[in-house]
């Protein structure tokens, strides 16, 4: 869980003091603070002004020390002087001093998040398999793939709820629809995907094949986002390793999603007694191998591209596990040990996601990398026209 264990230190003090004898008529509860929220001071009367309230910002207007008659500030800067001074200090590609962080707060996510990413990936891959089997007219495999899709997506929501700091408030995720936030869009997509997957399986059970096919197809359509948004989510942060991989993370996650989905379906088909020469089973074997090979290649290119930034990833044990697992799976496939290969691909997909998510912590704590990313020309410039009037606070 994401919570620290035991009561917070101030609660210990509060409890200890509560046991002491309190003198009559006096409240000696220690003011040791409360976490998470600013102080909540109740007004004596609703809507009343507090003592010292200044209706016309009298308190806020200006410093009492540095009035206009002091030598604190000049009469105004020469044209462009201030902007030029900032450009001297903040421009340039190299970091001029030894950095002294911390710069970033590390992501707080724990194991639930990468495990959810993996389940979501397998569900996405399975939804594609269902679509493919429907297109090829293999109804039995399609129905099985739809069931696998549902089975893989069901643990997703509980895992995400577990990772919340306040799990009971999970429904707040669906409080607003916010296209700007990948977390919001992901929550909506997960909900819609789960609903469509459940509907498709229900239609199968009720003997409505056309409805099942239609719902299966919409599941696959949602899957194009469900399988890739996890990469978008990581890439849209200030963590150098993730942000700098923005063009690679979504396709990488999509590759492991399809690889995992195809592998899971191949194993399920075999377990259901479909013989080895079955065209769907053969095709899934090809798909999983192609997906995992692509993943390996993209991952290698990205690692080379990142250079020293990729250190946090390369040092991770699960990343090495993922790479060797994938290579081992490909080797086993060549050796015609197909089931073992599929199982290895599934495991490698999980290790890969664990590695990427947990490496974010190390990367966020790498102050050198953060400082360098900010300095580099590609680091922080947004190439888009500024809208006029955005600098002002929106007036109500």
């Amino acid at each position: 869980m994401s919570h620290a264990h035991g009561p917070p230190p101030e609660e210990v003090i509060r409890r200890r003091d509560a046991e002491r004898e309190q003198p009559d008529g006096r409240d000696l509860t220690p003011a040791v603070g409360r976490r998470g929220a600013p102080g909540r001071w109740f007004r004596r009367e609703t809507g009343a002004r507090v003592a010292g309230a200044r209706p016309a910002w009298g308190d806020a207007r200006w410093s009492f020390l540095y009035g206009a008659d002091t030598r604190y500030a000049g009469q105004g800067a020469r044209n462009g002087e201030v902007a030029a001074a900032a450009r001297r200090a903040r421009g340039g590609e190299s970091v001029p001093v030894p950095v002294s962080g911390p710069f970033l707060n590390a992501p707080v996510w724990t194991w639930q998040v990468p495990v959810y990413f993996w389940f979501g990936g397998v569900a996405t891959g399975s939804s594609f398999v269902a679509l493919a089997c429907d297109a090829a007219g293999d109804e039995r495999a399609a129905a099985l793939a739809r069931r696998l899709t549902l089975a893989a997506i069901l643990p997703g929501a509980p895992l995400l709820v577990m990772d919340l700091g306040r799990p009971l408030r999970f429904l707040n995720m669906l409080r607003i629809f916010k296209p700007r936030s990948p977390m919001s869009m992901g929550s909506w997509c997960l909900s819609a995907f789960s609903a469509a997957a459940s509907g498709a399986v229900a239609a199968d059970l009720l003997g409505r094949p056309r409805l099942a096919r239609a719902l299966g197809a919409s599941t696959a359509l949602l899957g194009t986002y469900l399988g890739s948004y996890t990469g978008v989510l990581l890439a849209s942060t200030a963590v150098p390793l993730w942000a700098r991989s923005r063009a690679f993370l979504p396709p990488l996650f999509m590759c492991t999603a399809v690889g995992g989905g195809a592998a899971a379906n191949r194993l399920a088909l075999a377990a259901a007694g479909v013989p080895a020469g079955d065209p769907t089973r053969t095709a899934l074997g090809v798909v999983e191998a192609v997906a995992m090979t692509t993943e390996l290649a993209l991952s290698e290119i990205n690692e080379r591209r990142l250079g020293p930034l990729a250190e946090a990833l390369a040092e991770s044990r699960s990343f090495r596990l993922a790479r060797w697992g994938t290579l081992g799976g490909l080797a086993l496939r060549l050796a015609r040990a197909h089931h073992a290969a599929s199982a290895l691909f599934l495991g490698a997909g999980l290790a890969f996601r664990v590695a990427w998510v947990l490496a974010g912590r190390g990367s966020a704590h790498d102050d050198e990398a953060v400082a360098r990313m900010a300095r580099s020309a590609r680091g922080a410039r947004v190439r888009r026209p500024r809208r006029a009037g955005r600098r002002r606070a929106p007036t109500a």
Partner: protein
Amino acid sequence: MAEIAVHRREPTQRMGFFTDTTTCIGCKACEVACKQWNDLPADELRIGQGRSYDYTGALSASTWRHVRFAEDDAGWSFMSDVCKHCTHAGCLDACPTGALVRTEFGTVVVQPDVCNGCGYCVPSCPFGVINRDPYDGRAAKCTLCYDRLEDGLEPACAKACPTDSIQFGPLDDLVERAQGRVAQLHERGREDAYLYGAGDDPGEELAGGLGAFFLLTRPPERYGLPAQAESPIQQNMLTATAVGLTAGFAAAAVTVASVLASHRRRR
């Protein structure tokens, strides 16, 4: 409930902080005032860490003002760090619940009764400000004393600052004044003085311009500040989503094509 009665002041202005490091003496009165007003618990003391006389570490969910110490041979300087209340706020873009909002004062505030602790704002802040409290489970950061602003009072840290290193006011006034201060310092020979987060030319702003900006005399990295910053979502989200959806459709197409081809071969 009484405490959420909002008295809207019309017309509202964007309010902010101007923190002038040339007058900061590192007394940490702002940290104490912030904790007192906002009823935040104390941090564990970190004396004797060997590298710094700074004993409170960093900004966190329960420390909303933190005086950074820059201690080296070039001399000591202090900088009272705080949430920047960015124009393009990464945390605000990231928040999926709408707990983070832009107030009528142009500040960015977490609503503690809405936040469900998803943690996405934490890596989305390019300045490492907002964090999730490990005990409480919700994200928390500086509110620019929203409750004090409603009554026309300046935030607790600015009120407590004995040297007026922390100055509070309408952002436009502050920027103008700070530019005058930079000019004055340049005139006196402090050519290294510059503003971090205000007075930049269009296109060169930090996260669209900061609501709480600083006057610094050393490179930003000395104070743990990035030289350039932007809301990570505004920087990366569209590119990543486009690439991801393309990959998704390609992956679905490859799967369908493989299965179809396999069946055709069989027939």
